[in-house]
C-alpha cells in the first residue's frame, strides 16, 4: 500500500512563547508601541484641531513641565495613583482580582474626613492638628482594610468570585459616600461638604520641603520601597507568589491559602485606605462620592502593566499623569473639552497592553511563495 503524499499545510503565522527576551529588545518593543500610539494620538488631535501635531505635543509637554507648581501637581497625582497601584500589587500577584480599589480608597477617605469633621472646628472640638492627623491615619487604614477584607473572607470561605464582589463593593461605597455628604453637608444647601476646617487647617498635612504635597510624595515613595521589599524579599511575599502561581502547589507546600488571602487583602485594603488619607488630608481637604475620580480603576491598569514591580509602577503612573495633564493642556489651548485626554490615554494604553504580547511571544510569518520547494 502506498501513501499518497499530501502537501503539508504550513500556517501563515506561527506563534511561540519566548523563553527569555533580551532586555533591550523588550524595551524596544514597548518604546515602539508608545511611539505608534503617540503617532495615532497625533493623527487624532490633528483631525479634530487641524493644528501641527508637533506644536501640540509641545503644549502637552508644557502641561506638566512648564512651571514648578505644575510639576508638583503632577507629582502629587502620580503619588496617589502610584499608592493605589502599590496597594493592588500584592493582591494581583496572588491572582486575587481586587478591582475594588475605588471603594476601598473612598472608604478610607470617608473615615479620615469623619475624624477631621468631628474632631475639628465645626463642632468646636478643636483637637490638636497632630492628634487629628494621627487619628485620621489610623481610621483610614482600618476602614480601607475592612472594606478590602470582606470580599477576601467570602473568597476564602465560599470561593465567592472576588472580581464581581469587589466591583459591587465600589458602588456601595460610592452610595455611602453620597449619603455621608448629605449628612456632613456644609454650608447647608450646598450639596457638598465644603473645605473641612478651612479656617484652622486642623488635620491638614503640613508642608514638607516647602511644598503642600511634600508629604503625599514622601509617603508614596516610602511605600513603594517597602512594598517592593515585602513582595520580593519576605516570606509573606514568597507565599503570595506561590498562591498566585498555583493554589495546589501552595496547598501541597503547607501554605494556608485562606490565611494568605485574608492577610494580603488586609494589607491591600489598608494601603488603599492610606491613599484615601493622602487624598483627603493631603490634597483635597474635602470629600465627595467622586473624590477618588476613577483612579481606583486606572491604578489596576498601572499595577498590571508594571508586573507588580513598584518602581516600574511609578514610571507608568507618571506617564499616565503626564498624558492626562498634557491632553488637558491641549484641550484648553485648542478650546476642546478635556475628554480628549481620555481618548489619547485610551489609545496609548491599548498599545501598551497589546505590545506585551510581542514581548511574550515570538511571531514568525512564513509566506508560502517565498519558500523553496523541495
Amino acid at each position, binding site marked *: 500500500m502506498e501513501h499518497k503524499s499530501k502537501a503539508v499545510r504550513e500556517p501563515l503565522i506561527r*506563534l*511561540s*512563547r519566548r523563553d527569555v527576551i533580551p532586555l533591550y529588545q523588550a524595551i524596544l518593543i514597548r518604546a515602539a508601541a508608545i511611539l505608534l500610539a503617540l503617532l495615532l494620538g497625533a493623527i487624532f488631535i490633528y483631525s*479634530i484641531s487641524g493644528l501641527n501635531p508637533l506644536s501640540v505635543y509641545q503644549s502637552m509637554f508644557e502641561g506638566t513641565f512648564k512651571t514648578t507648581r505644575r510639576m508638583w501637581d503632577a507629582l502629587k497625582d502620580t503619588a496617589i495613583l502610584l499608592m493605589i497601584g502599590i496597594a493592588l500589587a500584592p493582591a494581583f500577584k496572588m491572582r486575587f*482580582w481586587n*478591582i475594588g480599589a475605588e471603594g476601598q480608597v473612598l472608604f478610607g477617605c470617608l473615615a479620615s474626613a469623619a475624624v477631621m469633621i468631628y474632631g475639628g472646628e465645626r463642632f468646636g472640638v478643636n483637637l490638636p492638628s497632630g492628634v487629628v492627623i494621627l487619628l485620621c491615619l489610623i481610621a483610614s487604614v482600618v476602614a480601607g482594610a475592612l472594606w478590602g477584607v470582606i470580599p477576601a473572607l*467570602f473568597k476564602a470561605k*465560599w*470561593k*465567592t*468570585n472576588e*472580581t*464581581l*464582589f469587589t*466591583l*459591587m*463593593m*465600589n*458602588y*456601595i461605597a460610592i*452610595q*455611602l459616600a*453620597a*449619603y455621608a455628604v*448629605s*449628612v456632613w453637608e456644609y454650608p447647608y444647601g450646598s450639596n457638598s461638604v465644603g473645605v473641612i476646617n478651612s479656617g484652622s487647617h486642623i488635620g491638614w498635612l503640613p508642608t514638607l520641603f516647602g511644598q503642600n504635597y511634600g508629604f503625599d510624595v514622601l509617603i508614596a515613595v516610602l511605600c513603594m520601597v517597602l512594598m517592593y521589599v515585602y513582595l520580593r524579599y519576605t516570606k509573606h511575599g514568597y507565599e503570595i507568589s506561590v498562591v498566585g502561581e498555583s493554589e495546589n502547589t501552595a496547598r501541597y507546600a503547607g501554605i494556608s491559602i485562606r490565611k494568605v488571602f485574608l492577610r494580603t487583602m488586609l494589607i491591600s485594603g489598608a494601603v488603599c485606605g492610606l491613599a484615601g488619607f493622602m487624598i483627603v488630608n493631603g490634597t483635597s481637604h474635602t470629600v465627595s462620592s467622586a473624590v477618588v475620580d*476613577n483612579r481606583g*480603576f*486606572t491604578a*489596576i*491598569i498601572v499595577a*498590571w*502593566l508594571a508586573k507588580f514591580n513598584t518602581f516600574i509602577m511609578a514610571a507608568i503612573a507618571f506617564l499616565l499623569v503626564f498624558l492626562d495633564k498634557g491632553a488637558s493642556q491641549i484641550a484648553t489651548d485648542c478650546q*476642546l*473639552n478635556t*475628554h*480628549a*485626554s*481620555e*481618548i489619547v*490615554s*485610551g*489609545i496609548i*494604553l*491599548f498599545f501598551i*497592553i*497589546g505590545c*506585551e*504580547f510581542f514581548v*511574550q*511571544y515570538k511571531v514568525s510569518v512564513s509566506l508560502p511563495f517565498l519558500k523553496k520547494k523541495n
Partner: protein
Amino acid sequence: MDRILMLIQAAVTFGTVILYGSLGEILTEKSGHLNLGVPGIMYIGGISGLAGAYFYESAGEPIAFVSMLISLLAALAGSALAGLLYSFLTVTLRANQNVTGLTLTIFGAGVANFYGASLMKLAGGVGQISVSVTSSAYRATIPFLRNIPVLSTLLFRYGWLVYVAVVIAFVMHHFIYKTRTGLNLRAVGENPATADAVGIRVTRYKYLATCIGSAVCGLGGLFYVMDYTKGTWANDGTIERLGWLAVALVIFSIWRPRNAIWGAYLFGFLYWMYMYISGLSRGSQELFKMLPYVVTLMVLIFVSLRKKRETQAPSSLGLSYFREDR
C-alpha cells in the same frame, strides 16, 4: 394608582437600558470573557447612534424612519467595532481581560463625552446637540393602543426598543440553552481546551460572542440617548453608572437572559423607588440607590454558598486561552 403606574413606567424604561447591557455581557461571558468594557461600549453605541442621526438630520429634510435606521446601524457598528478591539486584544493578543475592559471603558467614555460635547462645535454649530426627529421615531407608540386606560400606560406607551430587548432576551435564552451552537458556546466558556479538542473553533466563538454581545450592549446606549434622554447628550456620567449596573445584573440573573428581563425591571424599580416614597431625606434617597448593588451582592454570595453548578459563572471566565499552553 397613578404614582404606581409612573413608577412602573420609570422602572421599565430604566430597566431596558441595563437589560441591553447585561444581555450583551451575558453572551460575551458565556464565551469565557469578562468584558469590563460594558460602560465604554454602551457609551460608544450611544454616541455612534447620536452622531449618525445628527449628520443625517443636519443634511436637511430628514425622514424619521431613515434617520432611525441610520442611527441604529451606526450604533450597532460602533459598538461591534469596540467589541472587535476588545476581542483582538484579549483573544488574539491574550491580554488580560480586566485591564483591557477597564481601558475600553476609559476610552469609550472619552470618545462619547468628547464628541457628545463638541460634535456641534466641530461641525460649526452652536449649543447642545439634539436629534428630535430621530428621537421621536424611537419613541413612537401604536396609535389605537395608546389610549386604553391603565393597560396602555403599563404595556403600550414605550418606544419599540423596549419590546425588542425582551424579544432579544428570549431569543438569546433559546439560543444558549436549546441549540447546538449555544451548547458549543457554553463549552467554550466552561473549558476552552476541551471544546478545542472536540473540534469547536474556540477563537471564532469567542470573537463572535464578544462582537455580537457588544453590539447588543451598544443598543443600551442607543436606547438611553434616543429614548431616555430624548435625543440629547449630557456629560453627566449616567451611562457609566448604568453600564456597571448592567454588569451587576449579569450576576443577579445568574447568566440567564430570561432572568435578566425581570431583574432589569426590578433594578429599575429599586432605583426609582425613592422618588415615590414621600418624606425621604436626600441622604436616605442615596441609601435607596444602593439597593440594586446590595441585592446583587447577596445573590453572588448566595450562589457561591449553594455551589450548584448550573448557577455558577462560566468556569473559564476571565482566563485567556492559548492552545499551546495546555
